[in-house]
């Protein structure tokens, strides 16, 4: 892309994609901003005109707001911690030469191909159900009282379901990172007197820093908008009402589009705060 001519040709070629993506982003964003300043109740009079910042004030003043931010954070952080830690261990395991490696790797990746709604239903009915679920049977066979997971430990249950869905992604990225680690580095460390634990923390973990950053950034973006798993399992009850779910309730259950849109704008702001925060602490790993 050295010459001026080829540069302008490149711009022309990229234009359709850029315009499409811009439209894709800008249209919903503008509409959300627009509705957030209007009183819009589709079943109770429709668009009732400008209300200034009233929707914003009402959304924050609602008793559900702070708990929903908290629930969102708990979910995101919980899933990140579990997927990164378990992902590293699984990747370490899968990186060892073993019999049937190919098949095992495909099995590990499999959950990623299951739709969120389906996996949530499967977990709810086959695993977590106190009467028919696997965990219930397990508890009874050990002579324990089965736990009604979704009402007694609802947030941990959802974290477990979402972690199960995202573990393959984390494992896959971390596995490729492990595979790119120069084996001579490990051998050098071994000769330098580093045992397996020291090699893990001094050589492998620093090598994984970049991959972990990628996992955290990408997963955070998707985890902030988790919806189906909550909808299918608890319906937002028992402290599992995240910001996304609260917005859904405002728009569809209360039929208040204006209020929901204001919530949407808060969600965008929250996502950006999280993103900046993440970039600050882990982003430097991406430079080197």
């Amino acid at each position, binding site marked *: 892309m050295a010459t001026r001519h080829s540069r302008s040709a490149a711009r022309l070629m990229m234009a359709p994609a850029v315009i499409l993506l811009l439209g894709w982003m800008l249209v919903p964003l503008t509409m959300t901003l627009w509705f957030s300043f209007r009183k819009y109740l589709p079943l109770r009079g429709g668009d009732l005109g400008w209300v200034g910042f009233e929707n914003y004030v009402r959304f924050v003043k609602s008793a559900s707001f702070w708990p929903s931010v908290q629930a969102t954070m708990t979910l995101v952080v919980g899933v990140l911690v579990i997927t990164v830690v378990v992902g590293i261990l699984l990747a370490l395991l899968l990186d060892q030469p073993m019999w049937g490696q190919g098949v095992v790797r495909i099995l590990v990746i499999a959950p990623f191909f299951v739709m969120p709604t389906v996996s949530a239903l499967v977990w709810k009915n086959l695993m977590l159900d106190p009467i028919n679920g696997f965990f219930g049977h397990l508890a009874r066979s050990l002579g324990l009282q089965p736990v009604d997971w979704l009402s007694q430990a609802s947030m941990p249950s959802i974290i477990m379901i979402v972690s199960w869905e995202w573990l393959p992604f984390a494992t896959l990225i971390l596995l490729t990172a492990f595979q790119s680690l*120069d084996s001579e580095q490990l*051998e*050098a460390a*071994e*000769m*330098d007197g*580093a045992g397996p634990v020291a090699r893990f923390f*001094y050589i492998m973990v*620093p090598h994984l820093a970049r991959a972990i950053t990628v996992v955290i950034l990408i997963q955070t973006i998707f985890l902030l908008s988790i919806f189906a798993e909550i909808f299918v399992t608890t319906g937002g009850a028992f402290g599992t009402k995240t910001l996304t779910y609260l917005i859904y309730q405002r728009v569809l259950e209360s039929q208040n589009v204006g209020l929901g849109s204001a919530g949407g704008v808060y969600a965008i702001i929250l996502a950006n705060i999280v993103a900046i925060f993440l970039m600050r602490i882990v982003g430097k790993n991406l430079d080197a």
Partner: protein
Amino acid sequence: MGRIVLDKVTKTFGNVEVIPPLDLTIEDGEFCVFVGPSGCGKSTLLRLIAGLEDVTSGRVLIDDTDATEIPPAKRGLAMVFQSYALYPHMTVRKNIAFPLRMAGLDQAEIDRRVEEAAKVLNLTDYLDRRPGQLSGGQRQRVAIGRAIVREPKAFLFDEPLSNLDAALRVGMRLEISELHNRLGTTMIYVTHDQVEAMTMADKIVVLRAGNIEQVGSPLELYERPRNLFVAGFIGSPTMNFITGPEAEKRGAATLGIRPEHIRVGEGLPWSGIVGVAEHLGSDTFLHVHDTGLAETITVRVPGDVEFKHGDRVVFGPDEAKIHLFDANGLRKP
């Protein structure tokens, strides 16, 4: 101390025998070079000594104690890898200090040894950089620094110079030789480059397909190669091999004569047409065709001589410097 003995060591990968039974003694303080073509098992042999590979059978003795079952870290050997294997996320200081930290030395002692090694290797100004910000030669020195701070019984080098450009290679070659003179520690050095072997070694071990072809000092190998392989491998340009009447006349299957042991001048027995003449200034290498002796005969003439493509040249061997080999390729006494 650092006397290393290999006692009937073998190594097989799957069902491929890479090292057939092999005996070798490396004396304390010796600079021993393993040389041989690529894939002949030099690295494998070094890794067996280091303990990074387990021997299939046989024993490795270090200072007369059986080290076969001792893990690499406890053998007291330090290795410099071909890729340098520096830790990219650590500064030069931390890289060099790593083995000392693992050994649990106190910080003051670590600092002292790192500073000392850095001074020896001219790395003092680079201690706070990361490996990624260093040149190839500097990385090489960091890798050596990481090895010397441990004060090991022996150093193991696996083709340490093969990633450097030619000029730097000559410089580092000298530095490593000087290091050996100063420390007096046993060094085992692997290379496929016979020039490195000849210039650095006290003792050269020539390997082919895991077999030791010959062990000896550089001059022994040069003057009395035990077989055709060693004769062809050691020396540059390579030795000329002549079969047919000239060899039979002297009662051998093959006659070997080094390019530098051929003289040019009227009245000598051989002649041919110059193909390529390489003028190095100090010497001229003539590649002579149509001699009736072999495909090409390489002749080394001191100084710059006026031969060019197509010239006829008359030459002959220095009879005292002729090597004779029997039909099995072994040297005739």
